[in-house]
């Protein structure tokens, strides 16, 4: 009895001391970032390459900003800011852009970053042989020239106000021209950039290791090492974070974000969003070609309930195609909200029975969403059939307009243009909805022809209103690339593209 008491007493004291120490340690750390340590971040699958010409996915771009710097960057509000280029000048009609590079920046191999390197980079990215996924961002470029040792001028074929956003993305990731020449086709495994970390080792399927760049031109990172770990299974990622085998989960699943918010064991980073989830409609297909049918489909959807059931209410309902990181976000005068009576009336006006084939990704959550949508539509009398597709199949069907109605997601770009022009312009290269409206075409073209932010905002406001009326998309919710971090990780700032900028990140040891 006495021993038991003594023991429990001791452990209470020990616990109290530990807690005090821990509290002291936390406050001390909160003030003082520490150098050193290795940070492991999960990605969804192994990367295909470390050469920016092959970058496409979210994962690729994270590796990209670790190794390479982008010419421009975006801040936590989604605003374009200087990065490798310390200055950006633009023609008022967006027909030319001029960037001035930071002086004294060197690639990891010692090659100086200058205008020649940047021009060589763009020539390489624009070469059709390299099949860069970024090519759509670069087609408006008429010429790229070094107009000074650190100054590069882009002349555009057509007015291209959204061009700076491309420089904040893959197209703006500059690789060392010396390395390109030296490694040629093997550049994908010998990447050389100017970024905060240097490539060390790639163990295929297991990990990619990067080490601190001690000569980084910006703030030298605190971390010694960053490890990207491909982990295909969602549950295993979260379990690994819980078991302490992993420091950060990028693009965490809704279920895990909710769990982390409830148990408060991990830091939840909400970076805002550029992306939206929506139902896209091929307006050249029977029934859905009639705007009344599309409106009925929108009014029949209880988006709030859908979001609660599928996403546990985690993501905000979308009324525009622009996430929180884009200025025309929610700038719209009304959107069709749940109103089954209105839906039934519109269908009665249309007069014919409506049959819909809804294409969804075969992933469990997408199928579940599809089923919920199916139930809501069938309630107002829209006969709905669900067709499941695997991702590549879904893309093919969308690209060839071989579908009627499809649940889809667009990752979004750092300029509003990237979420609308290519999809809704009658000459848009990936207009999957067959949407064709001269008024829309003019607004989209106008928004490309001025760098005046106020004027552009007004144009996108009008675009939002037209989209809410014509409904080539029925918007569901914004999509946020949440990240989860272990409590020992500090300094992660959410940026709407969801990528983690690592120089400011540090770790308790």
């Amino acid at each position: 009895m006495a021993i038991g008491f003594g023991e429990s007493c001791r452990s209470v004291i020990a616990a109290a001391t530990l807690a005090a120490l821990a509290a002291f340690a936390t406050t001390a750390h909160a003030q003082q970032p520490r150098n050193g340590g290795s940070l492991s971040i999960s990605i969804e699958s192994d990367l295909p390459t470390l050469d920016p010409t092959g970058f496409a996915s979210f994962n690729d771009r994270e590796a990209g900003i670790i190794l390479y710097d982008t010419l421009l960057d975006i801040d936590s509000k989604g605003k374009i800011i200087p990065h490798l280029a310390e200055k950006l000048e633009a023609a008022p009609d967006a027909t030319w852009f001029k960037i001035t590079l930071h002086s004294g920046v060197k690639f990891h191999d010692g090659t100086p970053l200058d205008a020649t390197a940047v021009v060589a980079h763009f020539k390489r990215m624009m070469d059709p042989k390299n099949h860069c996924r970024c090519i759509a961002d670069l087609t408006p470029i008429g010429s790229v020239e070094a107009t000074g040792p650190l100054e590069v001028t882009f002349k555009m074929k057509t007015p291209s106000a959204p061009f700076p956003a491309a420089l904040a993305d893959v197209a703006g990731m500059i690789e060392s021209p010396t390395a390109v020449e030296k490694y040629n086709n093997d550049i994908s495994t010998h990447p050389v950039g100017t970024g905060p970390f240097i490539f060390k080792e790639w163990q295929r399927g297991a990990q990619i290791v990067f080490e601190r760049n001690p000569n980084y031109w910006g703030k030298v990172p605190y971390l010694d090492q960053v490890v990207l770990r491909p982990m295909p299974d969602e549950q295993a990622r979260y379990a690994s974070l819980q078991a302490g085998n992993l420091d950060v989960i990028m693009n965490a699943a809704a279920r895990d974000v909710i769990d982390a918010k409830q148990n408060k064991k991990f830091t939840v980073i909400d970076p805002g969003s550029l992306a939206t989830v929506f139902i896209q409609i091929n307006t050249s297909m029977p029934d859905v070609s009639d705007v009344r049918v599309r409106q009925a489909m929108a009014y029949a959807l209880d988006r709030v309930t859908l979001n609660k059931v599928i996403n546990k209410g985690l993501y905000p309902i979308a009324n525009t195609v622009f996430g929180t990181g884009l200025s025309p976000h929610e700038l719209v005068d009304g959107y069709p909200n749940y109103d089954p009576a209105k839906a039934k009336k519109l269908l009665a006006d249309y007069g014919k029975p409506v049959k819909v084939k809804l294409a969804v990704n075969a992933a469990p959550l997408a199928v579940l969403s599809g089923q919920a949508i199916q139930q809501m539509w069938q309630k107002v009398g829209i006969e709905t059939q669900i067709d499941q597709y695997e991702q590549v199949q879904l893309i093919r069907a969308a690209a060839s307009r071989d579908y009627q109605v499809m649940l889809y997601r667009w990752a979004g770009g750092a300029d509003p243009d990237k979420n609308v022009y290519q999809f809704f312009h009658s000459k848009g290269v990936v207009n999957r909805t067959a949407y064709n409206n001269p008024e829309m075409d003019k607004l989209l073209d106008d928004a490309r022809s001025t760098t005046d932010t106020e004027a552009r905002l007004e144009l996108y406001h009008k675009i939002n209103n037209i989209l809410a009326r014509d409904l080539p998309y029925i918007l569901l919710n914004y999509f946020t690339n949440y990240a989860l971090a272990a409590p020992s990780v500090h300094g992660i700032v959410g940026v709407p593209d969801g990528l983690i900028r690592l120089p400011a990140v540090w770790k308790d040891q």
Partner: protein
Amino acid sequence: MIGSQALRRLANQIALLVAIVLAATALTFAITEVLPGDAAIAILGDTATPDQVESLRKELGLERPIVVRYADWLAHAARGDLGRSYRTRESIGVMIGQRLPVTAELILITQLMALAMAMPAGVLAAYRARSAVDHALGALSIALLSTPGFVIGIGLIYWLSVSAGLFPASGYSRLSEGLGANLRSMFLPALTLALAEFPVYMRILRADMIATLQQDFILVARAKGLAVKDILIRHALRPSSLSLATVVGINLGRLVGGAVIVESLFALPGIGQMMVNAVYQRDNFVIQGVVLVVAVGFVVINLAVDMMYAVLDPRVRHGFGR
């Protein structure tokens, strides 16, 4: 006489190997062809124009008829050249070389674990047939058999890794990082697979063992007054292991299928994970390469198992029994 028989069997086996490999690769080629979408779309993604897709398709040689592509691939593969990945432009031979040891180690450890559990359990269940122990082991077998691998895997992760902190929840440590770390990273994935194999092995061993225990030579051994332990292990186990050896051999191939799930779950860089990625990316030559390696492995192992019969049971060598 025996020599020429063995040679003929070997020749038959090699003919079988060629036939199986041809059938397996041709079938895979056809199946991947049926999937809508191809590597060009997978590489260029959802904002590519039809022109861009068409030009890449030409460059990759995807526009040629399937028979031509298969023949071309086969001709190269016969010379040991498995081609390059559409997606990463890496040599597929090198890719498989990097990944195969991981999967091979996983499967080997799985088999050892499964046998280490199944052999004592099987012998015990046979010796005490229809006892409470036997029934309990039977019930456990059914439970394990009817639980999908990924459920067992997630369960083990939460139990032994998240709660107990005994093993890493995911990831792979190379042998160069130390044998201990390597085995620790392999333990949970191998156990996940082994728990599914264990019931099969145990039930097979139990059944054969019960049959053996009723044979005359066991009666003789008993009559000689040998200890139970000696009878079971020295006299009964070996002749009862024939079916077990066959199943263990066949399962080596089947386990590659299990590795697909387990490697994805535990983020192990083996050929299973590589195969899954290749299917998603329509990286057809990578799929072909893996199928080829697995098919060859499967046939060779079966051949080896056949030859092991003779070692396990002298009756096979002398032309008696089976």
